[in-house]
Structure formats: C-alpha cells, structure tokens
C-alpha cells in the first residue's frame, strides 16, 4: 500500500510499504478514507521528539471503513464507517475504567522509553514515534486498529466524513480540555492557539455553558475562523497586550478557565521569544512554554489552567510562584477521546459542532509532502491538510 512516512528532519515521503495485518484478536483493519495533519505532528517532523525512525508512517487523526475484524472483536463489523481515537486504549485497565483512556496501561508496547523519561508510561498513539508505542500511522491506505471495540466509533448516518474526521482528535482533545478544566455555565474561558484543537476547545467551552470565550492567536485567517465558525471572540497577540486585554474584558479578574492549545514550539514575541528559541536550540530546555506561562499569569485567582499542547520534557522560567500563590489548578493530558466521542458525534449530528472549515487543504495522499509543507509554514491560509488515501 502507499503511505506517507517520516524520512528525516522536516522530510516526508510517500512510499510503498507492506499492508497491515491483524496481529491481535481485538484488531480491525481500516480502509482509511480521510486522515489529517495535526500540529503535534510538527514536533515529530522537526526532530523535537527524537524517537522517530526513517520510514515510520505518520498520522493519528483519521477515519475509514472496517474491512477486516479480529476474532475477539464484538461490536465492530465489516463495512462500518468509523472514526478512531488517536490514542490506543484497552478499555479494561483501571485507567480506562476511570475514563482516563490516554493513560491506558496496556496500549504502549515500549513502556521502557517513556517510563525512563517521565516515571510512568502513558498509552500508545498511532503514528507518534517509538516512545508512544511505534504504532504505524494513518497516512496510509490501510491501518491496523488495536482494541477496536474501544477506540473506533461508528459515525451516525447524518454526519459527513468531512465533519466526523475531526472527532478523532481535534474535537475530542479540545472537548477534554474544556471539560477537565472544569468549565461551567457563566465562566469566562480563554484559549491559547486557534488551530484545530484550540478552535474546538473554544466551541466545547461554549457548549458546556461558558458565557464568554476568547481565542488568542496571530494568524488572521485562523482568527477569522474563530469569529465566523466557532462564534468566539478573537485576540491577536501580535497587536494586543493579551494580559491587559483579558483583564479588561473580565472586570480585572482574569479568565476562570485558561486552555493552552499551542505546544512545545510556541511562537512568541520579543525577548521571551528569542530567549526560548536560543535555549531550545542549545538543548538547555526541550520545549518552548510561552503560552503556558501566559495562561498561568492571565488566569484568575483560584482558576484553572489546562495544558493541551504537547510537551516532551523540560521547560525554563516556569511561573511556579504565580501558580502556587494564585491557588491555580493546573492539569494536562493527552486525549481521553473515547470518553467524549459518542457525545461529540451527537453534537455533530445536531449541527452544533461543525468542523469542515478546518480542512482548508484537501488532497490525495501522494501530495502529503506538500500538505505538510504548507501546514508547517502556515502558508496559503492552511489550518489543516487532509489526505484522501483511497481517492
């Protein structure tokens, strides 16, 4: 089959690779209909997560048709149109029973790497390096989906592929951030990052009852999407003092909930931006945390900060004093998508969650290198590149 692979730092190729096969009883094989780039892929592409091997198949946000089922699969059938969560979870361990699916004990076959780095191993993720299990990604004609009864969800008839695709990760990640940060009716919520995840975090916050939602970015086309498709307020940090703006619009309190959806390659202005770039390039810090810093400083006393952006290891100049003295709750997670996807698909079916606008660049899988280039450069108004592996 054809697949888009990582072949070196900032290099993507499309090559012929072996077809996947069923290896465990709970597997299905999926014929991939749509698969999309994600901002967190850029950390892999750029070599910031040094556990990729040349030839690894990229992609973790996808949907398709079930074409083969393992003998232990109970609920999925050949022909099902499903959207699959990006994290691989068994559904049986204690973490899964607590609906903390991305922390599954049984989803990462390479726990030695992540245990050594972080003390414990989270679950596995499709197409996200050997640290996260070495699972082949979804930018391919076919993909093997382990624990398919747990992670693959049938798409309701009234929901198009174009919409359902983003339930896989962007919406479920955003929803998780808004939910686990404790968003409740009447809250003011600020979201850093107007990519797919940030926009969907904002939309989820609105559906959870937030009274006002602000999304912070610098790219005009993304800020326009926030206004037009999400219905939230947009703040351009390249033209506005974000902390002052948020104080002003919240009566001096600061947002009740701050959601960071940027990650380890955060762009920032001035001295902070230069400082973080230099320290990261010298490997004196692994990640650039400017959005997290700002979220902590912006948040109201006793408020909640959720870190949705992907980070690898260590950061510098972390405002621990503000966190402690303001009594903040800080939480983060990879996506516990299985917890939210049924509800998300219902919202999609009712037209309350629309995602089609995120797919600004739709193209054949053969164009994956171009798709990643335009996505990485944020060129031509690109928010997400979507590949169609089977036409």
């Amino acid at each position, binding site marked *: *089959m054809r697949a888009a692979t990582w072949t070196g730092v900032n290099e993507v190729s499309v090559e012929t690779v072996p077809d996947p096969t069923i290896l465990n009883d709970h597997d299905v094989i999926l014929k991939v209909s749509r698969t999309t780039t994600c901002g967190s892929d850029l950390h892999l592409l750029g070599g910031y997560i040094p556990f990729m091997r*040349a030839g690894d198949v990229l992609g973790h946000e996808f949907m398709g048709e079930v074409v083969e089922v393992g003998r232990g699969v109970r609920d999925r059938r050949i022909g099902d149109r499903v959207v699959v969560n990006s994290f691989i979870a*068994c559904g049986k361990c204690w973490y899964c029973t607590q609906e903390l699916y991305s922390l599954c*004990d049984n989803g990462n076959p390479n726990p030695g790497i992540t245990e*050594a*780095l972080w003390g414990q*191993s989270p679950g596995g993720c499709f197409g996200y390096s050997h640290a996260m299990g070495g*699972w082949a990604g979804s930018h391919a004609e076919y993909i093997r989906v382990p624990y398919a009864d747990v992670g693959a969800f049938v798409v309701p008839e009234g929901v198009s592929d174009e919409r359902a695709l983003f339930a896989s990760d962007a919406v479920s990640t955003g929803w998780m951030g808004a939910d686990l940060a404790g968003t409740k009716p009447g809250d003011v919520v600020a979201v850093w990052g107007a990519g797919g995840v940030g926009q969907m975090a904002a939309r989820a916050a609105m559906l959870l009852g937030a009274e006002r939602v602000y999304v912070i970015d610098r790219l005009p086309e993304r800020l326009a999407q926030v206004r037009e498709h999400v219905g939230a307020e947009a703040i351009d940090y390249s033209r506005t003092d974000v902390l002052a703006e948020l104080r002003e619009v919240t009566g001096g309190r600061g947002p009740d909930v701050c959601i960071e959806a940027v990650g380890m390659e955060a762009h920032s202005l001035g001295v902070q931006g230069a400082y973080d770039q230099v320290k990261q390039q010298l490997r004196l810090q692994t990640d650039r945390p400017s959005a997290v810093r700002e979220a902590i400083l912006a948040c109201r006393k006793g408020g909640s900060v959720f870190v949705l952006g992907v980070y690898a290891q*260590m950061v510098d100049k972390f405002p621990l004093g503000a966190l402690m003295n303001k009594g903040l709750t800080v939480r983060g997670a990879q996506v516990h998508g299985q917890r939210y996807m049924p509800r998300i698909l219902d919202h999609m079916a009712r037209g309350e969650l629309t995602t089609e606008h995120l797919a600004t660049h739709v193209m054949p899988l053969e164009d994956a290198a171009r798709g990643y280039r335009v996505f990485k450069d944020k060129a031509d108004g690109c928010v997400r590149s979507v590949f169609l592996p089977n036409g």
Partner: protein
Amino acid sequence: MAVPRILDSLRRAATEAGGALLGRLQHVRLPGVGQSSSADDPETAARRWRAVTVLRSPEQIGTGADLPAPLAALGDRVEVRVTPAPGDRGAELAARYRDLPSDDDLRALRSALREAKQLIEVGEVLRVDPAPHGTRKATPQGAVLEGATARAGGEGVL
C-alpha cells in the same frame, strides 16, 4: 574486511549501544528526569520487588503454575506476592528474584509482569511488530533507536 561488513558491524554496535543506553537511562540522576530522587545502590535496586497493579481481585491472579505463563515460566527463581490494592484498584502483583539478578534477568521479569497483567486484564499480549514502514535508512541514530526499542518492553522503572 569489506566495507559492507564494517558498516554492518558499526550498525550492530550502534544498536547494542541503543539498548544499553535505555538500560542506563533509568539510573540517571539528573533533576527533572524520571528517577532523580533514587538513592539505592545497584544491588538494593536489583533486589526490590517489582510490581504491577492488575484490575482483578487477588484470587483471580493465580499462584505457582497457575500464574500467567510469562510469570510462571520464571519458575522458582522468583518469589511472587499478590496483595489487594487500595481503593478498588484490584491486586498488586509483585515479584523479585531470590538471588541477585543480572540486567537480562530484570528485563525478563519486567516483561513477564507486563505481559501477565495484559493477559489477565485483556486476554492477550499486545503486539506492534511487524508494523508497516517505509525504507529504513541505515543511520547511527536509527540503529541506536532500534536497539532502544527492541529492549523497551523489558526496560523502564518497573
């Protein structure tokens, strides 16, 4: 020696180094890395109980030859302890060698505990290989990562 054989030897050395590197990573004592607070000497560390928590009652874990096969295969060399976990978290399945184990022994025990947990909770051991992939360029970094990955099921802090 022909150039391809030299390159092959170097690749094997890099792969071996990757596995060894992962094995040593858990002993790193740098602030912010997994195990920075550990003060055990190597012998004490090797003799510790290694444990996984399994979401089953202790009675469902089995004993002796009834333990899941990967653990039972270690036979009398290991002693096994099963105790209830607090807070309805199931059972704590712990094991340690009766004698002083080698690094290979410890890798075998970690793998056995993880596989035993999967067999009890899920009914099968999750496999990732063979995973579809494209051309693997023969680079030193790739060889190091291959070695680390090959041992990753038996390494870690367990």
